[in-house]
């Protein structure tokens, strides 16, 4: 992404609970909390598994593949340094339907975004924070 201008974003306050998510990109992969007992992926984070109440929850790498579950084309200039319109997508991860991440889709022209579009994770570095974003998956039919 070195050829693209990186625009500033409101960045998260990093805590004990969320550091895995915002820093896993340093290892080139996305990590999501998972219950070791029943296998449930959990997002946003929780201290116990909400399904089986096991304490054995820990971050686990995921494929980074997903599909666009929904999207909105934002026209409102909430941030004056960010050109509008831009796409805000809800990406559903391949591992589990209800793990849905809000994201932008760099490299995807607005006219190409659609529900069901296959995407894969990429990261944008801001200091020690690696913001997960998604690009159309290689070979995806942009319909």
């Amino acid at each position, binding site marked *: 992404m070195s050829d693209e201008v990186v625009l*500033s*974003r*409101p*960045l*998260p*306050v990093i*805590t004990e609970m*969320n550091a895995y998510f915002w820093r896993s990109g340093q290892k080139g992969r996305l990590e999501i909390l998972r219950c070791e007992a029943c296998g449930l992926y*959990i*997002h*946003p984070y929780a201290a116990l598994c*909400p*399904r089986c109440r096991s304490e054995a929850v820990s971050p686990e790498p995921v494929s980074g593949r997903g599909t666009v*579950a*929904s*999207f*909105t*084309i*934002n*026209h*409102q*200039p*909430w*941030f*004056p340094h*960010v050109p509008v*319109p*831009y796409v*805000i997508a*809800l990406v559903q991860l391949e591992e589990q339907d*209800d*793990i*849905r*991440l*809000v*994201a*932008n889709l760099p490299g995807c022209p607005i006219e190409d975004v659609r*529900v069901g579009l296959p995407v894969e994770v990429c990261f944008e570095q801001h200091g020690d924070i690696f*913001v997960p974003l998604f690009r159309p998956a290689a070979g995806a039919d942009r319909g």
Partner: protein
Amino acid sequence: MASYGEKQACVSGLGQSSINRKPSVYPFKLAVEACLRAIEDAGLTIDDIDGAACWPGGVNFLGEGPSAAAVGDIKNSLGLKLNWYSSGEGAAMFAPVINAIGAIAAGYATHVLCWRAVGERWVPTYSHANAAGGPLPRVAGWMQWTAPYWAPSAANWTALVAGAHMHRYGITREQMAAIPIVQRRNAGLNPNAIYREPLTMDAYLGARMVTTPFCLYDCDVPCDGATAVIVSRLDAAKDLRRKPIRFEAVGAAATDRMDTWFARDDFPHMMMHDAARAMWRRTDLKPKDVGSAHLYDGFTYLAMFWLEALGFMKEGEVGAFIEGGRRISLDGELPLNTNGGQLSEGRLHGLGHLHEAVLQLRGQAGERQVKDLKVSVTGVGGGGFGGALLLTNEDL
């Protein structure tokens, strides 16, 4: 049917301040104005008020912004002597009302003053603050999942859920348009509404987009204003100035495994679906018994989700139901947001809907009065919280 506490509680008083599109009266003074009007409307004196509740919470000395009057602020200004108070979170903007009902059922209080005061025009909003430039603030809690993606507004979040629902059920913007158009027509009959000029389909479809599928007219109107209601024990309200408007059922629930805007098992449902189900479990009445609906319309689609959540039609059928606006008009089978709602009257943030429902059930809605009304429903919130109230003017 079990004997639920809300059946012994009612709304006995209503008060509303002026509604200001431009900052003109200090928002805290609007809150005081609404509270005094509600006490007078009920035929009570300040000394009769023994409970107080507002939302959202906060320390004293608010004065302006998203919450313009905390419990302590109103207490100090009115000289209230309180046996009970709450600024607790809960069922969205109905938290004060539902908490007050609980307090009355428990015997903590008899007449509870509840209010919601907004002064968002007086202070810069989040987006205005960013527009001023400078370093972006760090974000925590829920906002960490949205703001880093330049999605800082509930408009964006609601648009994402609405988009999934529209895609699944083939709902169109032309269908959505019925809500702002009908509500604007209602606002023409409401002297207190901010926008009262008719809205046409052409104007709707030609309006600037905010975040698809929402254009300007799908988003409510920020304002400075306040609404207050007095929630009373039913037997203590029988001889007051107004006919008591009784709570037939309340709904506040959180039953999904992951109650967030996007992580629910039943996405694109939201918390309102839990609240609506919980409400119907507490009454023998059914959707067919409802004569008017006063549903949260921070964005058009929230009212549409509420209509489905409350069971007025099957899942996915709301587009066909509202299309053309006939069914949801004042003379239709289910008049919706008869005061113009937040889309036209102004964003009084939930309690405005309760205010209108009670006016209608009292028969005080003037030119926009719904005929032969006995039961009204109101629901507020949506994504991460929700609360519903079923109200009636019939005796227990």
